[in-house]
């Protein structure tokens, strides 16, 4: 199986019976292999519908969806689904199976032997930050955050080239959600899968996505681009409103001071509290300058002084 798959929506339309407006209206979207693609938009935007079309939980009326060039409707249903990791907000762990058995669901369907199933479950538990001994516990013994980690492990079990995630962190408390967001980004870097991730939270979309598809009511694609490009140039008023009036600050949050051009004098003459680490976001650096009433900050990479970051240069980043 390839590490990651390319997904193409080709003029896909879906109308639910008894409703005038389409749920998804002539959606065309190319998601390159290995991309973390976030579908975001208000409710009624058809983002979950679009997601569930990919594993054919929801049938569509016209158009075509292709995974690595193959029409999904030409594949046997079970084969298609076993090749796609699926994570939902309510997780849907099987309460009567242990964590290990839950994770091994698809490997078992694929006929792996017991020993390989167990070894894979342990490997995945460690990958998602749980303990190998958790394999013998039941879902009711875990916290919400732990359960969603298991949900993720279960989706990754058979090493699918594509993951579908439907608001996976929507039911978690903010601290757990933030931790899992960070870990999912890391995981995406490590395993390199294509991920389609649905959320209604634009902050989450900007933080997580390599690319963001913004869907508006009626299932119309409003804009599809990188977070930086969307924040820099929203396609229309709807997008501008949806991403918020503080879009300039949001863009600054996407970059660290280590990534922007710095002024490089020989030595730094900065007070101890005027130093920031190179992995600080530009947004946080600006916030700190405003707080200190300072025009510049010294940037260090580890213990090494790398340059001076000036407030007057910030606008050139936008």
């Amino acid at each position, binding site marked *: 199986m390839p590490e990651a798959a390319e997904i193409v929506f080709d003029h896909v339309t879906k109308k639910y019976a008894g409703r005038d407006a389409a749920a998804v209206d002539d959606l065309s979207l190319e998601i390159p292999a290995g991309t973390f693609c976030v579908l975001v938009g208000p409710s009624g935007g058809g983002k979950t519908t679009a997601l569930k079309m990919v594993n054919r939980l929801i049938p569509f009326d016209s158009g075509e969806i292709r995974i690595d060039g193959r029409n999904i409707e030409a594949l046997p249903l079970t084969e298609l689904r076993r090749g796609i990791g699926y994570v939902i907000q309510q997780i849907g*762990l099987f309460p009567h199976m242990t964590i290990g058995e839950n994770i091994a669901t698809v490997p078992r369907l694929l006929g792996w032997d017991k020993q390989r199933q167990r070894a894979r479950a342990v490997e995945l538990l460690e990958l998602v930050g749980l303990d190998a001994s958790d394999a013998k516990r039941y879902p*009711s013994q875990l916290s919400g955050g732990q359960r969603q980690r298991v949900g993720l492990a279960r989706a990754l079990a058979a090493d699918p080239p594509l993951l579908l995630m439907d608001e996976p962190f929507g039911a978690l408390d903010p601290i757990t959600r933030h931790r899992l967001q960070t870990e999912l980004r890391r995981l995406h870097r490590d395993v390199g899968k294509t991920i389609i991730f649905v959320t209604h939270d634009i902050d989450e979309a900007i933080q997580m996505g390599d690319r963001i598809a913004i869907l508006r009511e009626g299932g119309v694609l409003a804009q599809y681009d990188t977070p930086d490009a969307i924040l820099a140039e929203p396609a229309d008023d709807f997008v501008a409103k949806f991403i918020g009036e503080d879009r300039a600050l949001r863009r600054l949050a996407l970059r660290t001071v280590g990534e922007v051009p710095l002024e490089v004098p020989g030595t730094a003459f900065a007070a101890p509290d005027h130093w920031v680490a190179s992995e600080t976001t530009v947004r946080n650096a600006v916030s700190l300058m405003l707080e200190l009433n300072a025009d510049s900050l010294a940037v260090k990479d580890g213990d090494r002084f790398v340059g001076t970051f000036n407030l007057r240069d910030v606008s050139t980043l936008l």
Partner: protein
Amino acid sequence: MDGSGPVIPNFGRGDSCVTSDRTFCWGWVHDHWGDTLGPALWQHVELTAIAVVIGFAIAFPLALLAHRFRRLEQPFGAISALVYTVPSLALFQLLIPITGLTLTTVEIALVGYTLVMLFPNIVAGLRSASDDVIEAARGMGLTRAQILVRIELPLAVPAIIAGLRIAVVSTVAIATIAGINVTSKGLGYPIFTALRDPTPFKTEIYSAGLLAVALAISADLLLVALRRAVVPWTRAAR
């Protein structure tokens, strides 16, 4: 035996407790375990077991059908409930002209009563898998049959056992009535023979009645133990 005490039919030897018909005579129970109470208890277990096993064999496939084709649930449920509304004595009387004073008559009635307790519980059990569990299972590529066998049936076990508990306990009780007016089998029969006497012998009534209660409680406890053994996930607490 002087002529002043109660007449104890068929039970020749009697100590003073028996001849003066005190509330409960252990001696009588001891003497007649072998020829009366023991066989009646065993027959009662048989009556109950046959009724519940056949009732389950009918209710289970009907519940699977009702689970698969939701339109069928209401008619099936209505029919089984209708049987239950007929008083047991009346039902036995209705059946006697057709099947006579036979074990078949008793079992038809008993099986009919178990259906109303088993069918809805099995259907509810099969539906107890939550929507997100089913969606996750579908999304991972389980077929409909795999979802039934691996997800819905195991999750239905607690509700099925709950239904069995009600069915067993009430069948034990209703089978006693069968022994009174249809068959000479089961714990109802000693009660019936005692009651038929103008001065009913108390120990016989009480001992058979208590055995029926003990049987119901034991069967219930066995099913509770079975549930604990086969449903480990509900015991797991954080």
